[in-house]
């Protein structure tokens, strides 16, 4: 898609707003529709557009595979870690009540952390899967 001037300009213009919208959906999920799953997908779609415009090699310079692998594991670990933290504070697994000074504050903190973990994992896994597909296409294209 390198020759499509209009798509390149519009796509480049859209990418930061898509990422901003992803962050909004992530951290506003307590108040409006949204949450980690949706935010992760939206955030990853910004990178998908970047790949469509500039090719998978360029995008992987910004988001290398090893970072995505680390982030996807970190998301799961963050979620599970919140549960372990509540265990150590003397409550049941994933009972956020004990995380804050009073139960409702603990619930807020727990939900934000957990949703952030979900967002990290979803965004990085979708990017990893997409890059894997896209890169295979490019390698095959080069070979043939």
């Amino acid at each position: 898609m390198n020759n499509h001037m209009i798509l390149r300009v519009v796509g480049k213009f859209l990418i930061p707003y898509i990422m901003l919208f992803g962050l909004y959906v992530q951290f506003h999920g307590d108040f409006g529709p949204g949450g980690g799953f949706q935010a992760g997908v939206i955030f990853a779609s910004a990178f998908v557009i970047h790949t469509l415009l500039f090719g998978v090699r360029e995008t992987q310079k910004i988001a290398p595979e090893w970072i995505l692998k680390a982030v996807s594991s970190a998301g799961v670990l963050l979620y599970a870690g919140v549960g372990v933290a509540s265990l150590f504070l003397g409550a049941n697994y994933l009972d956020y009540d004990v995380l804050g000074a009073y139960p409702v504050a603990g619930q807020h903190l727990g939900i934000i952390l957990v949703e952030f973990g979900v967002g990290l994992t979803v965004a990085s896994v979708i990017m990893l899967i997409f890059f894997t597909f896209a890169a295979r296409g490019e390698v095959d294209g080069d070979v043939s």
Partner: protein
Amino acid sequence: MILEQLIDIFLLAFLAIISIAIVRIRDVFSAVMLFGIYSLVSASLFLMLAAADVAFTEAAVGAGISTILMLATLGLTGREKEKMLVKKKISLLPLVIVVVTGATLIYGIVDLPPFGGADNPAQVHVTPRYTQQSMSEIDVPNLVTAVLASYRGFDTLGEVVVIFTAGVGVLLLIGGRRRREEKHADE
């Protein structure tokens, strides 16, 4: 109320039309695009049912990412359906299975409680606790987030692990092969 019903009928009719089109169409590329449209119409339908979060997910994942992944796959495999598959051979078994399954499902509908009824089992089990206590227990205005992240935290943890596993699986299956091919190209 009548307007809502009209929109529902309109969207459901669209779903049926798109499904038939997907079955009948021969061009795989068009079928993938129709799948995307199908997801978008489903998302509108979820919005009509006041399930904004589900509609959001359906639009982002179903219409967005799935379509992109299918297109990426098509880029690897080619967009034309093989002619082999087109050969006309009528076999009755699939038709019988589909008709029997459909009849069973329709028979099951008869026993379902009325749609949206106030004393349906779904409405009287844990829902009152969620709707009445969640503001004092969790204090998160979006009830869906409260249920997903706190009341049903274990389920959501499982879902995240499923997504993580999907990523690991894809990398194991086709992530490594690329590197080997590159190595061969270098040699």
